[in-house]
């Protein structure tokens, strides 16, 4: 009995091998000869959600103007995408056009390896880029990519919850801390942010430095080793950040609460405030959140720190996301043309969808939500902006280190002094590279 059973299984196995083996032959791509296949890459796997949908639309419009072109995009979430790009860089298979961000930690190594095409500034000058946008991608006097979004660091808040608890928009950090017991009494988390990925906390640290000194440039000075991170402003900023955590301003599991979780705490009205960037203007249209929330979400500028020299219009603002062209692409000129096309269409489309604040100027329209208008206003009010955040100004190792140390600071595992010392050591190593 068993023998027959086994024979059957073996035959089945043989079929299972043969059938797929016949099918696998059809695993390669086919391509019509005259068609140009433009390969692209980005970190937007969701093509029906806002950003992805905008890119799809741009692509569709581009193809209409260039009928012999086909666009194929490889999209993955952040980490797998970075990995894939690095693999492609190692084997000379980079896409023709791809999105890459964080200039010094990600893009610069590619530039140094001569894998990115140089862009002509003149091509993009008249496309209404905000001040400093194109400059943030300039290295060695040359332009290497076009930025897509203008990002500001702000505090979103829930007007309804504020009214419920009986507080008003705070001006200073002391006022923020005073609000904590009032929120907690009603079982609310005062403020939520993504502590697991740590970069929001790093940016907040930058922001506190700005509020203390009114001078964001000391960060670069320290990275250039003309100052040390163990100098007073940095340590004091670390202490203030840690004090905020100790005062229970944030959710209890801050350091393991990831982006989605922290965003949802705010969206589901469990947290009254949300410390994040201007790209979240889409909160107003997110169908996942209750209508009551969407009608009440607003934003205010990062508060002042008592005794600090910085004003509320010293913004932490930078330009995010770059689109670049592969230096060894067969279709380099076509790729550059795509970038120009993209730069033309993106601001309008993304603003229509209220999904991000673009790196190019947009006019406020009547359709804009109050949140969108407030964000544009905050940007317009800016007296100075920080430029690239600290963690993106040096090597990848420094970025990882800063994220780790800031997170440990927030986890109360490091004292501000220990944090400063370790960060400074990391900066020293980075400077030597």
């Amino acid at each position, binding site marked *: 009995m*068993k023998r027959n059973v086994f024979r059957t299984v073996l035959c089945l*196995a043989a079929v299972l091998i043969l059938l797929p083996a016949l099918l696998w032959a059809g*695993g390669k791509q086919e391509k019509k000869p005259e068609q140009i296949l433009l390969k692209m890459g980005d970190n937007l*796997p*969701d093509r029906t959600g806002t*950003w992805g949908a905008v890119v799809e639309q741009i692509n569709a419009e581009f193809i209409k103007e260039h009928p012999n072109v086909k666009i194929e995009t490889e999209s*993955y979430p952040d980490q*797998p995408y970075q990995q894939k790009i690095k*693999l492609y860089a190692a084997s000379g298979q980079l896409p023709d056009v791809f999105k890459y961000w964080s200039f010094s930690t990600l893009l610069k190594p590619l530039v140094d390896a001569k894998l990115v095409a140089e862009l002509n500034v003149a091509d993009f000058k008249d496309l209404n880029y905000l001040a400093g946008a194109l400059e943030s991608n300039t290295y060695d006097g040359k332009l290497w990519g076009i930025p897509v979004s203008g990002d500001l660091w702000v505090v979103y808040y829930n007007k309804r919850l504020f009214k419920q608890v009986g507080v008003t928009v705070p001006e200073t950090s002391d006022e923020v801390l005073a609000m904590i017991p009032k929120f907690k009494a009603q079982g609310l988390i005062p403020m939520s942010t993504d502590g697991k990925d740590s970069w929001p906390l790093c940016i907040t640290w930058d922001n506190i430095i700005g509020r203390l000194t009114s001078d964001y440039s000391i960060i670069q000075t320290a990275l250039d080793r003309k100052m040390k991170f163990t100098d007073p402003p940095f340590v004091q900023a670390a202490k203030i950040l840690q004090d905020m955590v100790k005062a229970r301003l944030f959710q209890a599991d801050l350091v393991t609460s990831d982006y989605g979780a922290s965003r949802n705490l705010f969206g589901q009205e469990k947290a009254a405030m949300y410390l994040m960037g201007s790209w979240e203007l889409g909160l107003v249209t997110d169908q*996942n959140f209750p209508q009551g929330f969407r009608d009440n979400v607003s934003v205010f500028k990062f508060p002042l720190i008592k005794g600090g020299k910085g004003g509320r219009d010293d913004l932490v603002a930078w330009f995010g996301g770059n689109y670049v062209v592969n230096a060894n692409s067969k279709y380099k000129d076509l790729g550059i043309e795509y970038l120009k096309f993209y730069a033309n269409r993106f601001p309008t489309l993304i603003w229509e969808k209220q999904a991000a604040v673009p790196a190019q100027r947009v006019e406020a329209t009547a359709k804009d939500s109050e949140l969108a208008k407030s964000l544009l206003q905050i940007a317009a009010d800016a007296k100075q902006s920080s430029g690239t955040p600290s963690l993106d100004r040096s090597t990848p190792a420094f970025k990882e280190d800063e994220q780790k140390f800031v997170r440990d600071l927030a986890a109360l595992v490091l004292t501000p002094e220990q944090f400063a010392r370790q960060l400074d050591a990391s900066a020293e190593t980075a400077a030597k590279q």
Partner: protein
Amino acid sequence: MTAKHLRIRKTAGRAILYTFLILFALLQLFPLVWLFNYSLSTSGELFGPELLKLPRSFQWINYAKAWTDGRIPMYVMNSMIIVSISVVCSTLFAFFIGYACTRMVWKLRLVVFNIVMLGMIIPIHTTLLPNFVWFKVFGLLNTRVGLTIPYIAFTLSFNTLMFSGMLKGLPRSVEESAWIEGAGLGTLLFEVVAPMVTPAFATVSIMTFLTNWNEFIMANTFLASENLRTIPFSVIRFEGEYASQYAVQFACMALAALPAIVLYFVFNKWIIAGVTAGAVKG
């Protein structure tokens, strides 16, 4: 103690045993229930205060989206092809090597066995970059067969270990009598030895299947084209840069788990009391 006492004690013991087993079963089933629960909610409800929550309205549309936008049919097809080949090859090769190293007599027996065991220890991530470059040379990048090779290689060690563990205890007598009856290697392996270790075959197949069915990192490395992607890619299609469609992702994962559960239930039959010591054929 009277017979009646013993009987009551036995029944009570059985009752306690069953209660414990059932409670434990509930604990193990819980994630599946949770998965289905939230696959039918809206993405926001996932972060709510309740662990299980009857959705305000059943979002069957999540499954529709998973099926269409998630490209489930195409990805399942690819997964089935790639994983089936991997399972069949890995199981067979492991059986062969396990047999050769435990039941056959030759000098390098232990050396080869230990080399194969070494494969288990190698962390996958350090092989990604070199393999990527190396496979490119052989034109194996972005092909289905290309992906099956590491899938087989990385499960071979565990599988061989499993087989060797179960082959070691077999009594020689059965093989000897088969040999006396004039059996060749093929017959010996497939009609005599294999039936004695069907639990091993079942366990190994299930293990290999599941390891590769949910595998993402190597698929991500070796595949590029949309039409070759496997099931884990359907989930990432709903991951936005900042906000993700969690509920639809759950629907994808639920759909992905379905074939696995079905196959496990079917293969379970093969783990039967298969060994009767001293059973001489004929």
